[in-house]
């Protein structure tokens, strides 16, 4: 009886000490702190607009959480965004595909790019970081080769609904992101696929000996990563109304930053979708809040860097205490 009570108390304490909880508390403090400094920050209009702006990174950060939980990494996502954007524009404008087909093509190329990453990592056994650095340059090169410096513009108006429209006042792409968050959250928390991801990250060898489909699950994680990068490209093209081969440059770092800030261990085995979402929101609102308060761009990225380091320090000191 007492033993159960103590363990329950301990687990409650653990919930409070969890990285995500601390981060959520920090987020609330930061929100109200910045809100005090600037009366334009905590407005529905601004917050929804920030939701619109963070969707592209958010869509990439979700499967990135999966990939990092398995102990891998995918730095080619930004290049896949560029490639998918170009495939969309090129197949529509130059090959004359109807736009819906071009959209499917673009998502297909994204998934294929992710599949190629996963294939090289699982079958040829090249480490994820090396594979994706290589494919980063390959995909970006393809994007530039196919586009030949031509940006594609003049999409039909209905296409802009995804990136600029609203549904009941909520930006369309934010709804897409919310749905994706639920899907990825459930997949990680409630399915054997999710549990396999953790198992791979904790001890890949043990997972293999337990007859878990290690390679198939990893392949799926990287393919998902490519697919949502394609989705992110669609949102981006729709928001800015044009296609360029340099789109998505540097997205990989923003997405990884959100995942790591959200408490996912870069060594694999632990992490949550909710943590990633908090990390994502935190970075976006810090950037926005600081900008509205009059902090300049270069100072803002310094603050983000400090927040990242601080949060990782807190997380690692907590983990040490738990052991």
């Amino acid at each position, binding site marked *: 009886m007492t033993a159960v009570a103590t363990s329950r108390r301990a687990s409650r304490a653990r919930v409070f000490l969890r990285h995500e909880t601390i981060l959520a508390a920090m987020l609330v403090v930061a929100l109200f702190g910045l809100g005090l400094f*600037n009366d*334009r920050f905590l*407005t529905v*209009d*601004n917050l929804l*607009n920030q939701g619109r*702006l963070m969707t*592209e990174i958010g869509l990439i950060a979700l499967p990135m959480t999966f990939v990092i939980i398995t102990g891998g990494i995918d730095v080619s996502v930004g290049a896949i965004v560029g490639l998918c954007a170009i495939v969309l524009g090129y197949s529509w404008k130059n090959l004359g595909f109807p736009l819906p087909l071009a959209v499917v093509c673009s998502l297909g190329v994204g998934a*294929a790019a992710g599949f*190629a990453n996963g*294939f090289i990592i699982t*079958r040829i056994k090249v480490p994820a970081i090396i594979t994706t650095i290589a494919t980063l340059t390959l995909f970006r090169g*393809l994007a*530039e*080769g*196919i*586009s*030949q*410096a*031509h*940006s594609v*513009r003049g999409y039909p108006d209905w296409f802009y609904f995804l990136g*600029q429209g609203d549904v009941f006042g909520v930006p369309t792409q934010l709804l897409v992101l919310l749905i994706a968050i639920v899907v990825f959250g459930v997949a990680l928390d409630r399915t054997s696929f999710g549990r396999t991801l953790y198992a791979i990250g904790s001890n890949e060898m043990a997972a293999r000996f337990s007859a878990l489909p290690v390679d198939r699950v990893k392949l799926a994680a990287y393919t998902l990563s490519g697919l949502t990068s394609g989705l992110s490209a669609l949102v*981006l093209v729709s*928001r*800015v*109304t*044009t296609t*360029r*081969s*340099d*789109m998505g*440059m*540097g997205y990989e770092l923003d997405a990884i930053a959100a995942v790591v800030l959200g408490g996912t261990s870069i060594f694999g085995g632990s992490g949550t979708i909710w943590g990633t979402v908090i990390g994502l929101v935190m970075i976006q609102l810090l*950037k*926005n809040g600081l*900008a*509205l308060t*009059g902090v*300049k*761009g*270069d100072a803002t*990225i310094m603050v983000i860097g400090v927040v990242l380091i601080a949060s990782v320090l807190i997380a690692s000191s907590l983990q040490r205490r738990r052991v």
Partner: protein
Amino acid sequence: MRSYLLTGAAAAVLALAMNTSASAAAWDGADDLATSPLACDASAPAAAAAKPYDGGKAVNAPDKAGKEISVVDVPKLIGIGYFNATSKGIADAAKELGNVKAKTDGPTEAKIDEQIKFIDNYITSGVDGILFAANDPVAIAPVLKKALSKGIHVVGYDANSTPDAREWFINQAEFNGIAKAMMDSMAKEAGEDAAFGIVTSTFTTPNQARWIAEMQAYGAKCHPKMTWLETVEAQEDNVLSFNQSTTLINKYGDKLKGLFGMTSVATPAGAEAVTKAKECGKIAVIGLATPNAMKPYVHADCVKSVVLWNPIDLGYAAMYVMRAVVDGKLKAGDTSVDAGKLGKLNVVNGSEILLGAPFIYDKGNIDKFDF
């Protein structure tokens, strides 16, 4: 089986990429506009037909004529000499006017999505006017239109947006004028039959793409014997520009007689690459750059001509135009605007204001400039 499929797919994609690069057409400036090369001699261009105002309009902008306004300047990126100079011009003009609070803020890399976020944040924070230099003319349009719809005045300089997304644009020099100055300088220094390479920012950056298109048109018309070897992208990145220039030098060897730098970063990097390769005097470096960055190379006789306008004047003019718009002194249909110490500047192309002809800095005059 799967691996065969994959190899097949990869081969198909590669074939597609190669196919497109082989059939690369003439440069279109990434904006589908026609080129208009100037005459080969120095004769003045025929006056262009007057075009009606095609800019946008700030909706229900509050009347702040003569009152203090806050203006934010969002250049392509911050922290480089060129935009420091435009920023200084803006600050100078704001000080001279006395009723403007101006500040410059922007991304540290020339990335369009970052730039959009900056502008978006300043719309939310509620400024009276936005000055911008676009990283992409079309991508920046929605956010600028949003600013106009909230009654914020929008004036561009250096790199334009689509005309209806801003009220006015300060054109630092007409594209064909720059193209002529560049090509003529190259022909003079490297010879009429020279082969050259180009280092640019990205193939779709508005100004650079347009200049290259105009250079191609002007070159075909006036210097037909020159050989165009290759154009490479180097963002606006110092190290990358140096590496790309070095690659061109190594790749083409003695064939390469000239190097164009299309950005204020690429030109000094190209000059440095030529210096390091000990090719000074054998490879002519011509490009757009700020004088301070080029002084060592000009004094070492490695670079003879640097083409540019005065970016301080450009920022200065942008600020004056912004004030004139707010005060109601510059309206659709006007043909000129008063720009303080620069005097009257002319309206061209409907809603653009022309700063003047390009300027060529050389050993004789470069020390008179400090930016």
